[in-house]
């Protein structure tokens, strides 16, 4: 076993070296930043829980900001460097909440942030940016750079042109440009949302100055004087278009643009219970209209706080104003929103349990690897088992928190499946280790857990959509989400786990580290068989339950929809495997190779069918996902080919001490018969 552990250690080391080599310095800001201090930690944590409504759900600001940043920036944080006091570059890292605060309170600074990631020099060429033509790596463009008239026109024109091309027919640059425009539009909506609060309004004419309360006023002041302004506008009436009322017209135009500016951002103003409003929050534009019409006075203090936050010079004053805004919104929303859920969601994203679990999984793996070096040390085995179990606990707690926040069963969308499948995959591997403690499942479990959670996090960022958003009407059924969706995903998870075990079996055998008749290989084979049985039971029941659900929602039990077909293929592959094993058509090698292919079928069903763009289940498209899917196929099929070649080309020599096999009574005879045992 020492050879295995040596291989594993070298692999881990090279992986670390690769990660180190991939890190890049953060880009420099083109101008000195306005904000010289950092937002205080307490403020950021408090402001993160500002409730707002976005995509039909009331959520904390941190969720909104985080997913906006993922979508626009493609990373979990925003980094840049500025010259420090000592002349050396100093790296600044902004979390999503700080980034949102900067957009609101320091829009000029935010507009020069390195925000839009460009991964292809062809995009820079198309937009007329000088570049060194480097195809590898990436660069960032800022909002200000894209906002330049020529660039913006060009980008919009290219978007119009390429968005007409079918997505599958676009080349990399075209697709990148289409996505860039979408990201620009998404950012633009957030950037402009509060723009009208950031400027002074010059008011001329005594009458108008009297009505709005000064010669230089700001939006909140105008809204505070909505009564006199309304009276003035009524008095002027249709005459407003005449030259003598040009000053009033200018103000009206400003207010109109303020309303229009809030287009596509989150809804920041809660519904007012006193007006009998239900659960739809207001945009700033709605609020401005309501106040001008003399309704919704409760919203005025919110405008004042926001105004104060924009207007204040010092960072701490801005913090105080934003904090006051948060408190007022929370108080107003209190009656309509479950404050507990907002607090829970804020804590959920701060604690980040699934992220923590990755570290513990890796630690568990290191201990398992150490376990191979010192096979007699029971303490290490227990330590690895406990650490991996603790990591599984963290992951499960993460899933439970998500259920509590959304009030739904564990899986509502494709992102949830990563966490759930990781948890179930780890759990089944740990059970396998407990049943047959050969230290193999002990090492596979944490790898499976960490890799799947990492993939999940990548998926979350590349997709950039809130993973707790409300569900479409057909999915709005906790009964079916809890039964069909959960069982079928247990089927996927365990099918995948069986495939990983099978891959390990094939590789161990092909590399001659383990003889198929060794207890280690036999135990691994037992695990593959047991997990496949478990997977089949859940897969079959889950698939049929899906049909029963479809019969209640779409009017047919089975419609040959790609997702249904995928689930059926997993079941068929596993049923065929079990029958082939029972009828003696395949022995150990055959079972391992078959289970490896079944793993590819699981990937096809879990993800690939969502990329096909047909059927009723196309709900999770992401282009980055396609690579992951093809990587899985490549790895799975490579291992399959290695196994086939190995079985065909190289006879296995008989080992010394073959008699040890006598200790494995049940299937040893049959299995040995499958191996060429002659010495010649």
């Amino acid at each position, binding site marked *: 076993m020492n050879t295995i552990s040596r291989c594993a250690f070298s692999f881990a080391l090279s992986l670390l070296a690769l990660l180190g080599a991939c890190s890049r310095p953060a880009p420099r800001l083109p101008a000195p930043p306005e904000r010289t201090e950092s937002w205080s930690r307490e403020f950021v944590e408090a402001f993160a829980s500002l409730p707002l409504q976005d995509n039909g759900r009331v959520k904390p600001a941190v969720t909104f900001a985080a997913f906006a940043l993922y979508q626009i920036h493609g990373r979990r944080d925003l980094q840049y460097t500025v010259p420090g006091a000592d002349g050396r570059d100093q790296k600044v890292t902004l979390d999503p909440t700080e980034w949102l605060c900067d957009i609101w309170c320091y829009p000029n600074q935010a507009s020069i942030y390195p925000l839009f990631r460009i991964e292809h020099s062809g995009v820079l060429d198309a937009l007329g940016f000088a570049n060194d033509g480097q195809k590898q790596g990436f660069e960032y463009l800022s909002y200000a750079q894209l906002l330049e008239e020529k660039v913006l026109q060009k980008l919009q024109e290219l978007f119009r042109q390429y968005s007409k091309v079918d997505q599958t027919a676009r080349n990399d640059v075209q697709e990148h440009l289409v996505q860039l425009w979408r990201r620009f539009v998404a950012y633009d909506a957030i950037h402009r949302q509060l723009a009208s609060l950031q400027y002074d309004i010059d008011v001329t004419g005594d009458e108008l100055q009297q009505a709005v309360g000064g010669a230089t006023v700001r939006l909140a002041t105008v809204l505070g004087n909505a009564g006199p302004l309304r009276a003035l506008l009524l008095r002027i009436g249709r005459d407003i278009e005449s030259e003598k009322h040009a000053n009033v017209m200018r103000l009206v135009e400003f207010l109109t643009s303020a309303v229009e500016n809030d287009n596509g951002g989150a809804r920041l103003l809660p519904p007012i219970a006193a007006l009998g409003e239900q659960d739809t929050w207001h945009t700033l534009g709605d609020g401005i209209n309501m106040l001008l019409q003399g309704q919704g006075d409760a919203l005025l203090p919110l405008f004042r706080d926001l105004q104060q936050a924009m207007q204040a010079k010092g960072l701490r004053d801005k913090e105080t104003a934003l904090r006051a805004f948060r408190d007022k919104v929370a108080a107003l929303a209190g009656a309509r929103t479950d404050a507990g859920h907002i607090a829970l969601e804020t804590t959920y994203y701060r604690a980040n349990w699934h992220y923590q679990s990755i570290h513990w999984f890796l630690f568990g793996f290191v201990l398992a690897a150490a376990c191979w070096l010192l096979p007699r040390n029971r303490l290490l085995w227990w330590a690895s088992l406990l650490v991996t179990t603790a990591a599984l606990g963290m992951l499960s707690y993460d899933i439970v928190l998500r259920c509590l926040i959304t009030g739904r069963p564990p899986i509502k969308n494709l992102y949830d499946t990563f966490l759930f499948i990781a948890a179930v995959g780890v759990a089944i591997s740990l059970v396998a280790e407990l049943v047959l403690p050969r230290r193999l499942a002990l090492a596979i479990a944490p790898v499976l857990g960490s890799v799947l959670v990492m993939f999940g996090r990548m998926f979350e960022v590349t997709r950039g959509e809130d993973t707790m958003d409300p569900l479409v009407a057909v999915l709005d059924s906790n009964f079916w989400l809890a039964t069909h969706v959960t069982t079928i995903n247990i089927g996927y998870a365990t099918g995948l786990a069986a495939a990983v075990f099978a891959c390990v079996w094939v590789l161990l055998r092909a590399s001659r580290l383990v003889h198929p008749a060794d207890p280690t290989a036999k135990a691994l084979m037992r695990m593959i068989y047991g997990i496949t049985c478990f997977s089949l039971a859940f897969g079959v029941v889950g698939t049929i339950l899906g049909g029963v659900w479809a019969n209640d929602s779409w*009017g047919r039990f089975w419609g*040959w929809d790609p997702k249904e077909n995928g689930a059926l293929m997993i079941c068929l592959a596993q049923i065929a495997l079990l029958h082939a094993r029972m009828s003696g058509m395949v022995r150990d090698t055959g079972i391992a190779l078959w289970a490896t292919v079944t793993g590819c079928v699981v990937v096809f069903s879990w993800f690939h069918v969502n990329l096909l763009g047909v059927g009723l289940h196309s709900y999770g498209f992401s282009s980055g996902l396609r690579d992951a899917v093809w990587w899985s196929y490549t790895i799975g099929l490579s291992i399959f080919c290695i196994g086939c070649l190995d079985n065909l080309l190289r006879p296995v020599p008989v080992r010394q001490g073959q008699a040890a096999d006598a200790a494995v009574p049940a299937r040893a005879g049959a299995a040995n018969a499958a191996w060429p045992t002659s010495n010649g």
Partner: protein
Amino acid sequence: MTAVAESLAPARASASPLALLGSMKLAVVLIVLLALLTWLGTLAQIDEGLWKVQRDYFESWGLIAQLPLSWWGTPLFTLRIPLPGAYPVMGLLFVNLVVGGLMRLRWNVRNIGVLVVHIGIALLLIAGFVKLEASYSGHLALYEAPKGGSGVASRLYEASTFVSFHDYELALLTERGEQVEERVVAEAALANARGGSVTLAPAGLPFKVQLHDWLDNCQPRQKGPMVNAVTPVVSETGSDVAVFLEPRPANKERERNVAGCYVTVLADDGTRIDSVLFGAELRPFEKRRVPFCFTVAGVRYGLDLRRVMFDLPYTIRLDRFEKNDHPGTTMARDFRSFVTVREGAAERQAQIYMNTPLRKDGFVLYQTNWGPQEGGGPPWYSVLEVSNNPSDMWPAIACGVIALGLMIHFLRKLGAFLTSSTREALKA
């Protein structure tokens, strides 16, 4: 053969045809074939659409499947593989299951789980067969009935018939005083009208009907000087208006196609009348159909190409349609129809919404769509899917049976393994 395998092996090992038919190896071959068909059928849907694939792959006796091979999304080449269709594969699988998995299996305590699972799978396959052969479905689109008054005359507010999604029929209507006699020919009998022609000679009537130039998706257009027609142009006797059916590319979703064909009525007295038939379904906007009418020997007749109509044993009226969006979005949280079911004098209120259909007298009514999508309502109209499937609830029963069987079998095996000497030997 091992101890485990022996217990599940056929009771009598023989080389009889029955043994072959019930053999586990045949089961493996059939299951792999079915998996292959499922996979190829899934990929084929990208280009061919569900309806065609379902017909060619899953309801056929055989086919030449196409496998577009690609790597990292780059197409390489297309393989053509002759395969039996899913119909014979599943039929044979059923026989194999009954013979090998039920009849020839040793009926003892150890196999009880396997037996139960096989019974469940057999039930599932039978349910699928019954669904394929004996069920029919269609849709029913209704406008919200006005509270008072009679509403808009043309709109459909209640109905006791529903129309097929895909299939057409040709109705020949004969005016008999106040009554209209109806004779119906199914679409299958008109298949030769594609490319060729079909002549129908209705018994006892003084004319023949010839159908030709059938188009699966088309649109009637008026022929003008600037309009090119690749299909025949016809004009009614004594009329200046010339029309033709303009062919349109077939949609992958078959229900979106509107078929049409040319018709020639050849009266026994030598008169010839040409026209076009167009199978548009206008419910709920227009409840009456406008057939192509002609008079032969003083009797008025009509020809109507329409989606197959099915009767409901009761009348459904849409009282109200309700759509709720998630706050601040246009994404539907819930949409439901409030209907009245009338059977003779008895009336009953019911709600139909997502995941909650109305099951009554062998028919199941589902909420499937609504309109107008652009501009919205009220008044809304609601589209209900109606299906009549004798095996409606059988899969749910099969699911329970299979789950039970799998649990019995695998738990017994797990228990046996945990206490076995094999496990002790394999432990480190």
